[in-house]
């Protein structure tokens, strides 16, 4: 399974756009890129998934360059409630999900 590397923590302010980049240099052809969000005392929640180029939903956007060796989760205009841990996962459609350490995002007023 491809290993992912992402920053341990990030700080932002309310109303800003936040971009969290994940590196996955040995991603395989069959692998998808998936992001999860976890609030304290809760299980992770699926945010977005992509294979290549750009994906957007009501929560976030996911940018994937042509070589697919990295991806960027973009959260538009964050609020205090977006404070959470964000996980980048890479794996095939079979769905064996391996989580890394994640990025702790702290949104400040």
């Amino acid at each position, binding site marked *: 399974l491809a290993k992912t590397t992402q920053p341990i923590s990030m700080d932002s302010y309310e109303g800003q756009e936040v971009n969290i980049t994940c590196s996955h240099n040995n991603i395989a052809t069959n692998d*998808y890129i*998936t992001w999860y969000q*976890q609030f304290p*005392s*809760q*299980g*992770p*929640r*699926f945010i977005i*998934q992509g294979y290549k180029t750009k994906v957007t939903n009501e929560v976030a956007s996911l940018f994937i360059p042509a070589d697919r060796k990295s991806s960027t989760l973009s959260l538009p205009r964050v609020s205090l409630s977006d404070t959470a841990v964000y*996980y980048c*996962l890479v*794996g095939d*459609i*079979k*769905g*064996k*999900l*391996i*989580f*890394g*350490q*994640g990025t702790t995002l702290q949104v400040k007023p």
Partner: protein
Amino acid sequence: DVKVTQSSRYLVKRTGEKVFLECVQDMDHENMFWYRQDPGLGLRLIYFSYDVKMKEKGDIPEGYSVSREKKERFSLILESASTNQTSMYLCAHGRDTEAFFGQGTRLTVV
């Protein structure tokens, strides 16, 4: 609403006891997972099941076993609980790469 039911929210067991953690889903999903989460160590996969009676080891299967006799139920078994198995245990189910997590069971082994 997607539902993942874990048998207990909090559990206290003694060292050496056999412990069963149960997880039930009502979405007919093929995939089910057991994770443990510890401060500073993130979320670690113990076992993954992709069909009834089918399982794969995760990163930390030692000291654990699993059972999936029916599609909707995935059980985690600690054959002989030890204090280093004190943790938050999270069950999930899903299809493809989208998984739905329960609230977790906080297990304390004394």
